[in-house]
Structures are given as structure tokens and as C-alpha cells.
């Protein structure tokens, strides 16, 4: 540790820390453009100048290491003059078009110019002008505004792992761009907009839409993948205008994946915004009363064992528990939340959670990925794996399609379960790498369980974990990576049929709660189907009654991410038309079905959640657990087939109902799908 005095305040910082970090530790704000905590230090903007005792010149604090006994001054005439000079140089070629710039109001350059800028320019010459670059459908560039901090170049290279941006030419002709025009092939491109300290990289869908001070900001949580990124929903006049990440070091740090950030325009399109009832074989608009009448007419009095319910990928825990209680009230045990057919073993949380936790990836020292492409299934989590691979020795073994570009080097072990078998008996070469590791982990993709021998895959993966010392009281290395934000919540609430209770026959009534992926061809023709949700495709078309629900931005909801972390989303906009909060719809239906649910307020529903599973009492807090019970799930590894693993997401941009309704995402799929190298030459 080094003792540093900053403006008379003595702080102790680790050796090797920068002067800027010492200043921050002392509570001093240092202006900066190129420096970013999560990127490497470039030291090229020179805005962070401070004075150090006995140093003849001001120093760039971001790239200057501390020394014991150093005396730093952050507010002296030398510092102020130095920063003013830097600001003057930065503004030489900056267009000062703040009135038409989307960054206006949240621009670092604008803010610092208030403190260090002059009210006029001494630069008489012509400003340089740079053509705007096309880098894809999401990021708009106005390159004249660029101050060459190279944050975007470093983000692409270091965090996103797609080194496609660079600084070409030099001096006055230096430009940031891809040199060869192309769309950036990353699922994290939206973060470029956040890290750009000026208005050079802005959001294309948000262009000229609003000013930051006009927006109402609501903290929420992203449910479009199972990472559970923390987000802030910015709205104006009842419309979502943009979604931005919130910092949560344990989950998404400060990143957000593009689907979570940009598919919100799908929340306005193709919505189920009023009840529909099927009459004479055709769905017709109806009132809520008519819809409930139709439900009561067909469902009341049906034997419980002939009623079934399924929940989909994006549903909140409140609605799930309400539906579960309603089904219990009707005497039905036919519940299903694994509509993708994934053979998730619901008997113990260990079997379905990402037990190592996302932050735990940083501590792991070997990784085996089975049947998953985390780059497409959880891009933010994948960025963390990538960072871990860069931090030091971290062998990554991959079982899945050959040549998948994960953005980090990996050892391709095989395509299918035969590799699992080899790992099980320890004969595989990767067994040695796992054996050497102290904290090995494996990630099993949910997609690898959605196949006829899914239960066997799960059991085999568990045994691989057990055999390679991943299951210990002090370390849990078994991880299931889910695909969407509602999948874990349903498992936590036990929305599955008891294993020993098979339904006596096909259901006569089926309640689909956001279960759009439910295979409509499996529903018998005379089954009465209620579809409740905000978007509906195939399954909704099959419904007899459609009840319009709320999307994740439109309700107070609880979601559980793949780690089992309980997080709350908040109401940012009101639902369109006659759509209502999902648990309230179910509460109302329970009344007409004669199985009245005992809760009338959100607080009461949440109390019921805690009653069903105590983890819901502690939102945002996650306890890391070791593995206390090494006994595995029910499947039999002996019945593994030889079919290679297929990846569940082939089109990242349109993987869920919201993004499929989004025009922005449609454009991304059009531009990027042929370009994203799904399979590159094996590493």
C-alpha cells in the first residue's frame, strides 16, 4: 500500500494504482475522456492532468502510478491552466453542434467544457471534417465529433472480443472506423454508445428522439436473456424511448446486450392489447367480461386433472405463483414451465441454477462448456468469460458445433455426447486440464437438455462435474445456463407437475401464460385454450380466449436470473389498450372459476411468493453456496444418444417474442445474420 496525500487528504491505495484512482479514493473528481475503469489505460486525452509535488510539469493522472509519500494537487493554477489548454485543443476540431447532438445533456465533453472551456476559440483555421462511418444498424456515427479517446476501439478489442474498430491514419488525418465498411459483428455494440464520452457514437433508434432531462427513468431488469442485466428504462409520455444498463458488478457490470437494449420497439408492435374470444371458429374482439364468461362457461366444473397450464419464457414470478395457486384451487397438477422440452430436473435448485454465480467466473480456473453458445445466449456473461480468459491461464473446453466463435480461444472437444462419455470415464485429454484446476466449472446450455435424451445429458454433466472436483462444499462448479429471464422463476416456484402424477388423458382446458413456444400441434382439437400474454404468435392463434397481459416494462414484477438471483422490475409505462397486469388477470379469473385467490395486493402476492420459496424474500441478494449434496439428477447417463448438440439460438437478434416484433432487431437480423461468422475456421 502507498500513502498518498491528495489536496491535503491522506489516502492509502494499493501499489500500482494510478494517481487518478488515488484522487478518486480521496473523493476528488478528475475530469477524463479516455480513461475508463473497465478498459485498459490509454492516456491520450490528457484531460486528467494534476500537479504532483516536485514534478516540473502537470502529469496525466490516469497513467501515472502512485508512489509512497506522493503529494498530489488537483486544483492549482497549473492544473486548471493545463486542463484549459487540453480542452482548447480538444475543441479545435470538435464541431460544437451541441444543439443538434443527441449526446447533449449527457455529454462528458459538454460538462467539462463548462468547467474548463473558453467562451471563444483562438483557432482561426478551418476545422477538419470526417465522413461518417457505417458500423451497423444500431450505432450512428457523427465522426466530426470524435475526440479520439479510443474508448470504442479498446471496448471492441478487449471487452467485446471483436477487434474490428481501429484508428487509421495519423495526426490530423486520424480516423476511428473499421477501414473496410462493415457492420460490427458484436452483440454488445450498444455499449459503444454509452462509453463514447462525446456524441460521435450515438444510438440510431434513439436519434433525435428526446433530451435526457425530458425522460422519466425507471430502474428495472432485463428479461430477454437469463443474465438478468440491470437496466434503466427511459420513457416519455408513456412510451419507452430507450433502455440503458445500470451498474451491477455482480451481474452485468455496466454492459447490456443489444437485444435487451434495442428490442423495446417490439413492445409497441403486434401487441395483444384487448381480449379476444373465439366465436364460430374465429377470434373476435371482446370485452373482459365476455372473455371471463367464455372461460367460466368452458372451464368451470371440469375435473382438475383434465386442466393443464404452461408458462413461457418471459413471465414474472407474481403471475406464475398466481397461476400455480389457481391451478391448485381447480385441483390440477398439470403444470409445465419447460415448454421448450428441456429436461431440467426440478427436484433441487442445484440442478437448474448457475451455481458458480456470474461473479464467480472470475475465480474459476478452468471451464467446460457443453451444448451452449454463451456469446449468443448470454452475451454479457460471455464477456466476463472472455475477460477471465485474458486475465490468466484459463483452459476452456467446448462441446458443441465445431468452429463457433466465442470471442476467446477454446479447445473444441467434440460435437456431442460421446465426448461427455469420454470425460465421464476420465479418458479424455481435457480431463487432465480440469483435474489440474482448483476451481473448475462447467456451463451446461439449456439447449442441450431440449432433446430426447436431455435427462441423460443433465445427469452425465452432473457426473462430469462430480468426477472433476467441481462439487465441493466450498465450490460449486455446476452451472445451467438458461435462455430467458422467466425460465428460472418458474422453476424456483415449482411450476412443474409432480413426477409421479401423470395426467389421465389429454387436457380439456389449457392455460398458456406467455407460453408462446408451446407447440400448438400438440394441443388436441377440442381442448379449450386460454392464452394470456403480451405478444402471441403460433400458440395465441390456436387460443379460444386471449387475455392481454403486460410486458416486462409495464408491470411491477419479480424475475429470477440464471444464477437464482431474485430481481425486481418496475412499472415504466402503462400497458397498451385494455391489457392488465398478469397476476391481476389470474386473480380475476379465479373469481369466475370459483377458486378465489386469497390476495388482492401486490404486497400480498409477494408475501405468497416468499411462502412458496423463501429466496423471494431477498431480492438482489444472492448467497453463494457450495455443493452439499453430490447425488445427481434422475436421468441415466447410460442412455445418452450420439446425436450432436444443436445450439438453441440460431438468430440472436430475434430470439424472443418481443425482439421478433421489433423493427430494429429485424434490421439487425437482415444486416448481420449473413455477416456474423457462426462458424469460423477452428482455432
Amino acid at each position, binding site marked *: 500500500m502507498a500513502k498518498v496525500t491528495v489536496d491535503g487528504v491522506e489516502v492509502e491505495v494499493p501499489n500500482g494504482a494510478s494517481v487518478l484512482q488515488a484522487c478518486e479514493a480521496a473523493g476528488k473528481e478528475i475530469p477524463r475522456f479516455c480513461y475508463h475503469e473497465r478498459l485498459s489505460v490509454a492516456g491520450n486525452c490528457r484531460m486528467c492532468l494534476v500537479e504532483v509535488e516536485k514534478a516540473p510539469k502537470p502529469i496525466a493522472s490516469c497513467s501515472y502510478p502512485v508512489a509512497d509519500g506522493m503529494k498530489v494537487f488537483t486544483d492549482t493554477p497549473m492544473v486548471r491552466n493545463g486542463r484549459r489548454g487540453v480542452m482548447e485543443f480538444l475543441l479545435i476540431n470538435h464541431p460544437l453542434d451541441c444543439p443538434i447532438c443527441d449526446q447533449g445533456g449527457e455529454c462528458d465533453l459538454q460538462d467539462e467544457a463548462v468547467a474548463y472551456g473558453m467562451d471563444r476559440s483562438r483557432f*482561426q*483555421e*478551418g*476545422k*477538419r*471534417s*470526417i*465522413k461518417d*462511418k457505417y458500423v451497423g444498424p444500431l450505432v450512428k456515427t457523427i*465522426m466530426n465529433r470524435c475526440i479520439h479517446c479510443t474508448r470504442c476501439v479498446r471496448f471492441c*478489442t478487449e471487452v467485446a472480443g471483436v*477487434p*474490428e*474498430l*481501429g*484508428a*487509421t*491514419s*495519423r*495526426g*490530423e*488525418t486520424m*480516423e*476511428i*472506423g*473499421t*477501414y*473496410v*465498411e462493415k457492420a460490427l459483428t458484436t452483440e454488445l455494440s450498444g455499449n459503444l454508445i454509452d462509453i463514447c464520452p462525446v456524441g460521435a457514437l450515438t444510438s440510431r433508434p434513439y436519434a433525435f428522439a428526446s433530451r435526457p432531462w425530458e425522460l422519466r427513468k425507471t430502474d428495472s431488469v432485463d428479461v430477454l436473456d437469463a443474465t438478468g442485466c440491470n437496466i434503466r428504462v427511459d420513457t416519455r409520455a408513456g412510451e419507452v424511448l430507450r433502455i440503458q444498463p445500470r451498474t451491477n458488478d455482480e451481474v452485468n457490470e455496466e454492459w447490456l446486450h443489444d437485444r435487451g437494449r434495442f428490442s423495446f420497439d417490439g413492445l409497441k408492435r403486434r401487441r395483444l392489447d384487448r381480449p379476444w374470444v373465439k366465436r364460430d371458429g374465429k377470434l373476435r374482439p371482446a370485452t373482459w367480461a365476455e372473455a371471463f364468461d367464455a372461460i367460466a362457461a368452458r372451464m368451470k366444473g371440469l375435473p382438475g386433472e383434465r386442466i393443464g397450464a404452461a408458462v413461457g419464457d418471459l413471465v414474472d414470478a407474481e403471475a406464475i405463483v398466481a397461476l400455480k395457486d389457481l391451478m391448485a384451487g381447480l385441483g390440477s397438477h398439470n403444470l409445465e414451465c419447460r415448454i421448450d422440452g428441456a429436461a431440467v430436473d426440478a427436484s433441487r435448485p442445484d440442478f437448474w441454477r448457475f451455481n458458480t454465480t456470474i461473479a464467480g467466473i472470475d475465480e474459476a480456473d478452468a471451464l467446460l462448456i457443453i451444448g451452449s453458445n454463451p456469446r449468443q445466449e448470454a452475451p454479457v456473461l460471455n464477456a466476463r468469460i472472455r475477460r477471465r480468459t485474458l486475465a490468466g491461464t484459463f483452459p476452456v473446453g467446448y462441446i458443441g458445433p465445431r468452429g463457433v466463435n466465442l470471442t476467446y480461444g477454446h479447445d473444441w472437444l467434440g460435437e456431442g455426447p460421446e465426448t461427455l462419455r469420454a470425460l465421464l470415464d476420465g479418458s479424455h485429454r481435457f480431463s487432465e486440464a480440469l483435474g489440474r484446476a482448483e476451481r473448475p466449472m462447467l456451463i451446461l446450455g439449456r439447449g442441450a437438455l431440449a432433446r430426447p435424451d436431455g435427462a441423460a445429458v443433465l445427469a452425465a454433466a452432473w457426473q462430469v462435474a462430480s468426477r472433476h472436483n467441481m462439487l465441493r462444499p466450498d465450490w460449486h462448479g455446476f452451472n445451467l445456463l438458461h435462455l430467458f429471464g422467466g425460465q428460472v422463476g418458474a422453476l424456483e416456484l415449482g411450476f412443474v407437475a409432480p413426477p409421479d402424477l401423470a395426467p389421465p388423458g389429454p387436457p380439456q382446458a389449457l392455460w398458456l401464460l406467455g407460453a408462446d413456444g408451446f407447440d400448438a400441434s400438440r394441443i388436441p382439437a377440442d381442448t379449450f385454450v386460454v392464452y394470456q400474454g403480451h405478444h402471441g404468435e403460433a400458440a395465441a392463434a390456436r387460443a379460444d380466449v386471449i387475455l392481454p397481459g403486460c410486458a416486462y416494462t409495464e408491470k411491477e414484477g419479480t424475475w429470477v436470473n440464471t444464477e437464482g438471483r431474485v430481481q425486481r422490475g418496475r412499472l415504466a409505462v402503462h400497458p397498451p389498450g385494455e391489457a392488465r397486469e398478469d397476476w391481476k388477470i389470474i386473480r380475476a379469473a379465479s373469481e369466475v372459476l370459483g377458486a378465489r385467490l386469497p390476495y388482492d395486493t401486490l404486497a400480498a402476492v409477494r408475501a405468497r411468493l416468499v411462502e412458496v420459496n423463501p429466496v423471494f424474500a431477498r431480492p438482489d441478494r444472492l448467497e453463494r453456496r457450495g455443493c452439499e449434496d453430490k447425488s445427481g439428477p434422475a436421468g441415466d447417463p447410460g442412455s445418452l444418444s450420439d446425436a450432436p448438440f444443436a445450439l438453441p439460438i440460431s438468430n440472436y437478434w430475434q430470439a424472443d417474442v418481443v425482439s421478433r416484433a421489433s423493427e430494429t432487431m429485424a434490421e439487425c437480423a437482415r444486416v448481420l445474420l449473413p455477416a456474423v461468422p457462426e462458424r469460423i475456421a477452428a482455432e
Partner: protein
Amino acid sequence: MSGAGGYDDARRSGGARIAGGHGRGGQEIGGGWEATHATGNANEVPDQPTSFDFDAESEAALAAIVKRYPPGKQASAVIPALYLVQRQMGRQTGSAWVPRVAMDLVAERLGMPPIRVYEVATFYLMFNTKRIGKVHLQVCGTTPCWLRGSDDVFRACKDAGHLKGYGDTSADGMFTLTEVECLGGCVNAPVLQVDDDYYEDLDYDRTVALLDALRRGERPQPGSAIGRQTSAPVGGALTLIDVPGE
């Protein structure tokens, strides 16, 4: 990169040059950068070939260069590799430049992302990222050469090479004229670099004669045009004339 001339030009035109697509692009003839360098977008470079492959000579040289670096550090060979490309293009097409496909090939051979090669190739003005003339005339315009008459050399290049100014390529594709910064040959100023060779101690007439010879396909002996040995004083040695003991 040009020297102070760019700012002077801008001042003369009253700063009304902003409309150009590039810093100095508004002017047809700039400091020389545009003659040999693309802007930030390779798609805008005309005549990009569709393929490039190392010939046997380059291949052998590349293997020798890559061997200099420890395994995993092949990217260190990027600058010599780009020189190989430029020389090979000169041999094969008569225009020594580095097309984009060749940069991609270098990236592939050295196991580095293409953008890292683009950055290097566009950073150094010794690499031409645009097609140039058969002979590349590089006039040093830095102070020592300028004091010793680089303006005359420049004028001679324009007159004898039928060039409009810095950044121009002659209509017959023979010469491209660029202004460069200090070539480190100040003692023999003014210096004109022709492709890889330095021609020193030039004046107007000698430069015209040199260009005429180049046009005829000759390559006169590089070095001092007034016959002095390396950088020895003009007219013979001035010191160490007496040999002690004689």
C-alpha cells in the same frame, strides 16, 4: 501528414474549405498525403484489386522475416511484411502500393485481426494505400532542405515530371510527387527520395536531369549529385589534411 503548408493553405482560402470530405480533401492538390493515402475507408480507394498472393520471392523473404520472432509474436513482422507487399506490387504492376486484399493476407499470415494491419499500413506514410505512379518522388520540405533550395527541387519535379503539385500523379502514370518530412539527409540537403533511394545535393537543373533519366528508364547512381563522398565537405577534406610525421 504534411507540414505547416496545410494551415497556410487553409488560411489563404479563408477557412472556407470545410466542405471537403476530408481534412485537406477539399483541395485538389494538398500536401501530398492524399496522393498516396486513402481516407478512413478502403471502399473509397479506386482500383482495389480483388486478389493478392505472395509470389515466390516474397514468400521466401516472408518466411525469413517471420523466423526472427519468437512463436506467438509473428505480428511483430507486420511492417516488413507490408514492405514485401509494396515491393511485390511494384514489381508486378509498376505501382508500389498496398491494396486492402494484401493487408488482409498479411493479417491472415501473421494471425492478427485485419484492422490492426490497416492501422499500421495507414499510419506510416511510407506505405502507399492508394495506387501511385511508377516512380515515387518524395521531396523533403523540412527546414534544412528548404533553406538549401528544396523549393527549386519541387519546381523542377513539377516542370520535368508534368505534375501539378504535391499529391499529383502525372497523366502518363510515370511520377507521383509527395512532400515528406525530414529524411535525415540534412548534410546533403536538398534531398529527393526516389522510391527507396536518396538523391542529394540537388538543384533545379540536376533534378530535371534526374527526372529525364528516370523517364528513360534509367536509374542514376544514388547519393550526392555533385560527386562528394557520402557527407564529406564539398570540395574535399578540410580537416585532417596533414598527416602527422610527414
